[in-house]
């Protein structure tokens, strides 16, 4: 059955239509492209001019929908899904993160301060920055 579901991908949260069952989480191809930027084309999954070949196309796409688990597998990305709650989290591919870390370029981020105002690393471009990660635990 098709219902609204929330797809979380990095710092984006997008509501999509999903057809879910115990082992399926199908999102319409158009909405998945809107949420993640990846489109299914004859040459594979494509974004920004880069295409990743898809080994098992039948497992990925059916009836205008794309299976989120097969989508993540094709891109080497982790995905955690709770079909009945209509909630899925796409993580970043380990290979992508490793490449980013290897470059020594500080990954950009925007996070809310304690009053909810967004603050970005780039707000302090041109200055030395010390990030301090902490927690109450």
């Amino acid at each position, binding site marked *: 059955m098709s219902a609204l579901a929330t797809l979380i991908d990095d710092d984006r949260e997008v509501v999509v239509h999903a057809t879910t069952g115990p082992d399926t989480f199908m999102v319409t191809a158009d909405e998945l492209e809107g949420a993640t930027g990846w489109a299914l084309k004859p040459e594979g999954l494509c974004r920004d001019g880069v295409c990743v070949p898809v080994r098992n196309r039948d497992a990925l796409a059916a009836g205008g929908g794309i299976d989120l688990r097969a989508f993540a597998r094709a891109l080497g990305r*982790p995905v955690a899904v709770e079909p009945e709650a209509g909630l899925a989290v796409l993580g*970043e591919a380990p290979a992508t993160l490793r490449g980013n870390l290897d470059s020594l370029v*500080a990954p950009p981020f925007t*996070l809310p301060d304690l009053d909810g105002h967004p603050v970005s690393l780039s707000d302090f471009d041109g*200055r030395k920055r010390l990030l301090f990660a*902490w927690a109450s*635990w």
Partner: protein
Amino acid sequence: MWQALHEELAPQGLVIVAVALDENLDTIRQCAREESPVTLTYPVLMDRDHLLAEHYGIVNIPTTVWIDEHGRVVRPPAIAPADDRFRDFTKVDSSLHHAALRRWVLDGVVPLSDAEIHDRQELPDADVQQARAERRLAVHLLRRGQDDRAREHLGAALALAPNDWTIQRGSMPLRGEDPFGQAFFDFYESWEAAGRPGYGA
């Protein structure tokens, strides 16, 4: 906490940005108030989804990362307490870090070569990335009051990343465990037995 260093080094050009890998905004607000007799004057950001941990390869707190004027990481994530209160556990002398920080800010001396930085980075594998996704799903389920489903996904995260503090100790409050009680000591012992992985001092 870092307020004194902030006051000392901000006029020299350093920006300190604190990021809380924490689910509870009220707790963090309270911690930020209690940490210093004066109001903290550097930004404290909330990262409930642990995005910083994922993108920077942070596996424990308190951790610092140094980023230069050009947006380049010159010191990768490393345990860096503000003081020596927990030195028995951290085995890190905070004054060494602070001295190195002053040399970098005042004299431009970077502490590590690129090769040394790469040696000290905590690179994620597929299990840790899956664990982070499961943890993130779990906290979103908790926010929706779906505790039973959340517990399953937290369990998956815990099994996949046995030595990641942000996942193990970081989820103790979410599981009703005391992060300063028995659950902490049990985790600390198993982590120490595993050779204190991911501590990049």
